């Protein structure tokens, strides 16, 4: 396949993935908006009003970046893991495997689907956030770039989960027992400055902390973490996960007998 044909194939997967989650927007786009609105009402408004300022921002404003990021992370991940495992489970991944499509295009196609859902949900949640919080964008470049990189990273993680998964249980275990705890402990609702030194150090091994803080810097201009380190870690994970996913697909792991 020449480059132009590869581009057509890539666009085909992206369109397919986009239509897949848009057709079922009531299940894919709306729920995170409602969930996030509830977070704003309960944690931001009711409980947050008792907490006071954090790093010079109201609690509502402080948790907004984390809540947006949480929606981006979970939706980017969920989109790719469910879509990829679904194509495996129903065997329609064979449509791609018998074609001359290079594996890297399959990866990019699925990741772009996850990115699209992550960004659409992120935008929807951000719009909802504006009803509750008073957000002034500190840096659009940092906000958009870190949101996109995080979305790509977790779409890749979802892809790996989909490659390894052999049952529907396998695609819910990681989000439930790994992703959700890491997200909650990644500083959505608090600054790690509030933690004892030991737990601050433990928090530093959680990669999600770096992404949420970079995103918070983009929106509010405050962060617990050095911005360059956040970018480096996010980029490092993207490259590592992409290489691993490509290696697995080239080997046929989970997709070929």
């Amino acid at each position, binding site marked *: *396949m*020449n480059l*132009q*044909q*590869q581009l*057509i*194939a890539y*666009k*085909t*997967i992206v*369109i*397919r993935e986009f*239509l*897949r989650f848009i*057709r079922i927007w009531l299940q894919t786009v709306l729920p995170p908006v409602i969930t996030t609105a509830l977070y704003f009402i309960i944690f931001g408004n009711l409980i947050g009003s008792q907490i006071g300022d954090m790093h010079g921002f109201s609690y509502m404003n402080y948790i907004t970046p984390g809540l947006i990021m949480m929606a981006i992370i979970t939706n980017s991940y969920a989109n790719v893991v469910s879509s990829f495992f*679904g*194509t495996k489970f*129903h*065997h*329609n991944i*064979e*449509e*791609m*495997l*018998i*074609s*001359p*499509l*290079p594996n890297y295009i399959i990866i990019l196609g699925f990741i772009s689907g996850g990115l699209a859902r992550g960004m659409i949900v992120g935008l929807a949640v951000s719009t909802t956030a504006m009803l509750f919080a008073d957000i002034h964008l500190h840096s659009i470049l940092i906000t958009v770039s870190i949101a996109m990189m995080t979305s790509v990273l977790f779409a890749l993680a979802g892809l790996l989960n989909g490659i390894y998964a052999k049952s529907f249980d396998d695609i819910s275990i990681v989000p439930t027992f790994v992703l959700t705890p890491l997200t909650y402990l990644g500083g959505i609702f608090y600054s790690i400055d509030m933690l004892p030194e030991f737990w601050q150090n433990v928090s530093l091994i959680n990669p999600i902390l770096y992404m949420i803080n970079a995103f918070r810097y983009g929106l509010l201009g405050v962060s617990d973490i050095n911005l360059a380190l956040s970018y480096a870690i996010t980029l490092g994970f993207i490259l590592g996960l992409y290489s691993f996913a490509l290696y697995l697909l080239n080997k*046929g792991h989970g997709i*070929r*007998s």
Partner: protein
Amino acid sequence: MTRALSIRGLRKTYANGLQAVKGIDLDVEAGDFFALLGPNGAGKSTTIGIISSLVNKSAGTVKVFDHDIDTDLTAAKSCIGLVPQEFNFNIFEPAVEIVVNQAGYYGIPRAEAFERAEKLLKELGLWEKRHTMARELSGGMKRRLMIARALVNNPRLLILDEPTAGVDIEIRRSMWDYLRRINAQGTTIILTTHYLEEAESLCRNIAIIDEGTIIENTNMKTLLNQLQTETFILDTQQAVPDSLNILDYPVRRLDANTLEVDITKDRSMNHLFEELSESGIEILSMRNKTNRLEQLFVKLTEANDA
């Protein structure tokens, strides 16, 4: 003559130790309509899976139109269209999208993909259902949709793994006509089926695979000539007496108006009809008791089991 498919020493051992394919050699000439037959679990689908790169082989070489799948996989894949045994499309996608997306995976621009999809869906009687979700199509429509999808890249080699399973006779025959037509236009076809009448009617050459090895590989005519005896059922106008005795012919009376007779291939049936006529019995119709290929198939696979 160009070979559409050339397989040498092909082996497949699954992770659980099952040897599905045990070193087969197989050639299919370009333009052929080739039957790959075998009982369930014989290794047909594994072989097809390897050819279409859905299954990793353990050993051997596979070339599709001289493109080795080990060294020139992209070119080999570009030559193949596959209709698998099981429905494997996204049941939540409309029929036309399934075909158009498949074209996209081959790098065919979307506008052209729609044109091709329209042509194929019309030819296969699915155009009216183009916007219907795949899950809402009937079994026969789903089979035809898989054929349309497999043909959208204009493959030189079309592999059909039991394409008419569960399809009613009328649709099956229309699918046969369609397959004959595309074969006549130059597409090489490899067909696996459990309907041996289908293989006999469509295919010029045949290989029978059993327990992972090829036990017969010849042309259909030569294979059918191996059949020494055929059994026919005769429907008679008059009631046949219990004591009917036709010299030299092993005739069995099934009921008052039905006879069964074994005819060896070196004997004419004229004498049988004469004797029946002399006994005052007229024949209304005559048919094979079983399909000829089926008789041979059972004989060959039983011999292999022995």
